[in-house]
């Protein structure tokens, strides 16, 4: 009771602070409920896309027992990651415009109107802070700038749930405003000049998102590749015309790639374990087990590019060594730590286009692309397309 009385005294209208708190401090007619509502809905859709695709990507890389990611269509993961990164980039101007449209509310007087309003305002901290944090860490991460201290994946993943929670609280609070602002007749009393200002404001936001996407999306969207001057990767730039996620020197395998004693171990739940030399694999590629496929490399960081791969069908090799048909398969790299191994579910392992690739775009693999042998599978994250293979283990 005493606290309420203090708040009432403190927030009296005649105690309104100066500056941004005074009425009319923000008078642009481009700000109105309808603009805020339209931007809010757009932002909800963009962050919704980011959330669903982000959680999907997480489940693909750390699959719980109930989860199965389909191996087809081959472009599925490429689309998932492209949508994640480019919806996030498009959200930058939309978020800033949304914040601009509601900025005067930060200085409303009195600041609080009861307990429910206090909760609603408190939820704005994780809402706005979370959105800014996700976009900032995401954009820094695709630019390979890890300047935070915390682990990107852990923080980005859990912040997404905090943001979605704050978005649901905000939506529950603002639903009446949303209905009012988007309903017919909202603009009845609004001067034409103000409506024009609003349209220009929204158009400006759209143009900003469009320019940003045009200058970056070509790292994944091949028809736009020549425009992608501001993207962290460029299609066609890299050894054999394909970008490299991690090069052989950084992965610490460069010195071991020329070893004539290299063998691919095929082991685990198999009837006839094998250790295949490069020549034996080449002979299989040129024979009945040989296969070529056009498959994309799709990095979790958003860039992707299709390439022509040739090698030995994993399915045929599994049949040759007598692996059970429904088994998952672990592929193991010469690399240590990091993404040195990946598990393929039976759907990916048995897909007709899943290859142990020896050639890329008509030539033997460049060391940075995984010489002597790498995995390439459809609808698979780039970090699970294991390079510099040493072993295939049937689980």
């Amino acid at each position, binding site marked *: 009771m005493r606290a309420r009385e203090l708040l009432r005294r403190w927030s009296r209208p005649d105690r309104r602070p100066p500056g941004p708190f005074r009425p009319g401090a923000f008078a642009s007619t481009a700000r109105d409920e309808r603009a805020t509502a339209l931007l809010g809905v757009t932002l909800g859709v963009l962050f919704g896309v980011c959330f669903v695709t982000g959680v999907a990507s997480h489940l693909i890389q750390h699959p719980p027992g109930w989860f199965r990611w389909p191996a087809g269509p081959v472009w599925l993961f490429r689309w998932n990651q492209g949508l994640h990164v480019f919806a996030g980039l498009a959200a930058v101007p939309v978020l800033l415009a949304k914040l601009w449209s509601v900025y005067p509310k930060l200085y409303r007087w009195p600041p609080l109107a009861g307990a429910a309003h206090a909760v609603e305002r408190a939820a704005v901290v994780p809402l706005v802070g979370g959105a800014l944090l996700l976009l900032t860490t995401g954009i820094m991460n695709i630019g390979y700038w890890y300047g935070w201290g915390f682990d990107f994946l852990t923080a980005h993943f859990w912040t997404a749930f905090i943001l979605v929670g704050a978005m649901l609280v905000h939506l*529950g*609070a603002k639903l009446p405003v949303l209905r009012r602002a988007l309903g017919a007749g909202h603009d009845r009393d609004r001067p034409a000049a103000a409506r024009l200002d609003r349209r220009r404001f929204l158009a400006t936001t759209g143009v900003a998102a469009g320019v940003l996407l045009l200058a970056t999306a070509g790292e994944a969207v091949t028809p736009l590749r020549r425009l992608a001057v501001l993207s*962290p990767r460029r299609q066609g730039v890299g050894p054999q015309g394909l*970008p490299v996620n991690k090069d052989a020197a950084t992965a610490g395998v460069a010195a071991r790639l020329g070893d004539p004693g290299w063998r691919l171990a095929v082991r685990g739940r198999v009837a006839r374990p094998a250790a295949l030399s490069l020549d034996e694999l080449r002979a299989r590629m040129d024979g009945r087990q040989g296969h070529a496929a056009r498959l994309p490399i799709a990095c979790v960081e958003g860039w992707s590019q299709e390439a022509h791969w040739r090698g030995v069908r994993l399915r045929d090799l599994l049949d040759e060594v007598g692996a059970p048909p429904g088994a998952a398969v672990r592929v193991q790299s010469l690399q240590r730590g990091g993404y040195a191994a990946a598990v393929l579910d039976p759907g990916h392992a048995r897909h007709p286009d899943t290859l142990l690739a020896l050639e890329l775009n008509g030539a033997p693999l460049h060391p940075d692309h995984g010489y002597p042998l790498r995995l390439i599978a459809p609808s698979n994250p780039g970090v699970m397309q294991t390079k510099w293979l040493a072993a295939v283990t049937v689980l």
Partner: protein
Amino acid sequence: VSRVPEAPRPAGPSGPWWWAGLAAGGAVGLFGLGGLLRNAAKSMPATWATWLLGLLLAHDLLLAPAVHLAGRWTRRAPAAWRWPLRLGLVVSGVVALASVPVLYGVGRATQPGNASVLPGDYPRALAGVLALVWSGVLGLVTARRLIRPGRGRGRRGRPRPRPG
């Protein structure tokens, strides 16, 4: 005892949707916060919170006031210039802001031998994009003058409230 006049009290949120949103959003949000705290060795909650609040304050106390002042400044421009000028400033600002990591280029050091990481000349690319944007702005002003001659030749347009 002096009487304290009643402050106007706009209603806070209420109704079934508010409570449903609060329950669902609270649950999802606490699930996220729990995950963050359970993985504290990786998520580093104190650093994380510093970034979250730092970005919030950087927006509210630096970026938003700067945009506000820039908006007020564009008010001085002739009417035909005003909207195109704001368009140019907003698009330039957004593209430059989103390009900070590639412009900074520190990511190249993560893989010195990998020329496909940040392969562009990004300062030049940004200059090119901005040149195109401002050509568009000039084109827009010219087009508006051709469509509605007489507007924007130093004349102040219709009285408008201050932007910001």
